[in-house]
């Protein structure tokens, strides 16, 4: 019993989950609309894109890396999928295109970070610009509209499964799968080891370069496929799609307890973090905070959430020869 309590207390995602509960309760009390099915759908649908990307981003952040190129990749992919579909290509072809883009970006990022050992922040900042530039060149002033969106994608964006938006289910399933893999497979555990102590990982015989490469590749692939999620969510895409998304994604991860310093955090936390941020944004409107103050309040709450997480997580003290203090 005692160990169970201890274990629950040690759960890294607890603080952010509590914060989420608090936000939901406060907002719901002030504005009952928030508690309705449509309130629930607003939050879950709104979070689908960021949650999907946050799951992928977790893979790289636990390795003490970062991938800033996801916003450009997902936007470009959304555009390519819509564009291909409007030219009469089938659904799978379009998805293949998105995946190919993601894999390409992932390969470039992964190769440079893993095999050339270049800092990921610089590399992915570079690819952020490059992909965005190519995207702009391809898209120009064109806009993808609903009639260009492949049918299945359109369907996913518009419909719910017993009240739960399909898009959220996609993100949720992804989270469950990746969550399981990261806890239960050796190669994914290596990512934590790499992020926790790179030198030790190398000494310990972990194939660091291969793992880093594959993680970036996976993140790229998810970002590429997530273009469909973005497209489904907004039913439109243009040259600025996905702009600036990378910071929201990183923020979601950090709020969810996936430490920038590497080695800790789970995809569950990242998704809860994304939901929390989305809930806060929605809550500000629901609480009637004046428009011009919302961003400021949002920033403050973001800082508060990080502080709370930090406060609660450092209460779990390390143990020593003499047992826990």
């Amino acid at each position, binding site marked *: 019993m005692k160990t169970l309590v201890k274990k629950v207390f040690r759960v890294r995602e607890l603080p952010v989950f509590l914060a989420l509960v608090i936000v939901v309760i406060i907002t719901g009390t002030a504005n009952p609309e928030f508690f309705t099915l449509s309130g629930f759908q607003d939050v879950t649908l709104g979070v689908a894109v960021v949650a999907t990307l946050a799951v992928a981003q977790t893979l790289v952040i636990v390795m003490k890396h970062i991938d800033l190129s996801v916003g450009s990749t997902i936007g470009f992919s959304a555009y390519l999928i819509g564009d291909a579909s409007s030219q009469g290509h089938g659904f799978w072809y379009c998805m293949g295109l998105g995946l190919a883009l993601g894999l390409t970006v992932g390969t470039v990022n992964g190769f440079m970070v893993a095999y050339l050992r270049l800092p990921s922040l610089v590399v992915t900042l570079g690819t952020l*610009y490059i992909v965005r530039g190519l995207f702009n060149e391809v898209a120009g002033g064109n806009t993808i509209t609903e009639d260009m969106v492949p049918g299945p994608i359109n369907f996913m964006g518009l419909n719910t499964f017993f009240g739960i938006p399909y898009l959220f289910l996609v993100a949720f399933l992804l989270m469950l799968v990746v969550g399981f893999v990261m806890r239960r497979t050796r190669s994914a555990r290596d990512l934590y080891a790499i992020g926790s102590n790179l030198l030790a990982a190398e000494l310990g015989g972990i194939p660091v370069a291969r793992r880093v490469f594959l993680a970036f590749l996976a993140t790229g692939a998810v970002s590429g496929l997530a273009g469909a999620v973005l497209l489904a969510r907004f039913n439109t895409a243009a040259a600025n799609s996905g702009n600036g998304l990378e910071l929201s994604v990183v923020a979601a991860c950090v709020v969810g307890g996936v430490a920038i310093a590497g080695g800790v955090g789970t995809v569950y936390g990242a998704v809860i973090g994304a939901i929390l941020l989305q809930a806060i944004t929605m809550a500000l409107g629901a609480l009637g905070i004046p428009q011009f103050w919302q961003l400021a309040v949002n920033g403050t709450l973001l800082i508060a959430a990080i502080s709370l997480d930090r406060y609660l997580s450092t209460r779990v003290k390390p143990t020593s020869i003499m047992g826990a203090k």
Partner: protein
Amino acid sequence: MKKKYTFGWDQGVSVFLVLTVVVGGFISEYFATIDNISFVIQDVAEIAIIALAMTYLIIAGEIDLSVASILSLTSATVGFLFRNGTSFEVAIVGGLLVGLLCGLLNGYLVTVIGLPSLAVTIGTLALFRGLCYALLGNEPVNELPENWIVLGYENIPGTFLPWSAIPLAILAAIAWIVLHYTRIGRWTFAIGINPEAAKFSGIPVARMKLGLFAMTGLMSGVAGVVYTLRFASASPDGAVGYELSVIAAVLFGGVAIAGGIGTLWGVLAAVLSLGAIRSVLQLIDFSANALLVVSGALLLISVVAPKAIEIYQSRRNSAFVTK
């Protein structure tokens, strides 16, 4: 016991700057003109000023993503105060003070509360930007005093340098000397290499970091004033996205994102190079999209090139250096 000569990326960037200017002058007749040089300097001034401080911060192992928001908040404060009847001079002082306070807040959250700076400054990025809107709403301030505004777009009489070159030159000189030749500079590097050892070496780590964040805030404030004058207005959405440009410039200048490595000269050369190359490409009719691609490519080159040099040199010495 002689210091071995090693080729650093900062020299690479300097070479790149010279090449850009020379080649640029050849391929575009419009590039090496007095007006254009003045414009390029003006165009990079704000980023350069912030980059000076950001160099310290990144070398010390921290980062500040909120600089563009601080710039804008300073500008908004200046506009707000001026619109509400204070003199423009007082408004500027007020704006700089706000910049300093923003930096102190970042520093406080990082050093006292102990939050990671990347995360904190994503938060304050939103907070400070939000305060811009809270201050100005949807009404930008224009009609600033003419005698001040001319400083924003005219050259120093008799030269081809814009007025903003003065604060830039002075601040750059100070920043350069302090970083590479004084105790504060050494401490900055030491903290970046190993903060714990720094603490054990009697370096006031927390105070230094707080100071560096405050300085970054203040510099962003200075940039905010320059920005206000250059665009003769204050609006809540100023300088959106500049933070990435600043960081890109600092990294391109050879500062290691992991801290502990970098030179100020490299960063200055990088800022100027980026401005120059953008100008050249624009003048030979590259599209804005191509400019984005080039910025990205340059960033990649800035990390690939030193690596390539390192590998080449170690091949030549036929020695495999672990790590």
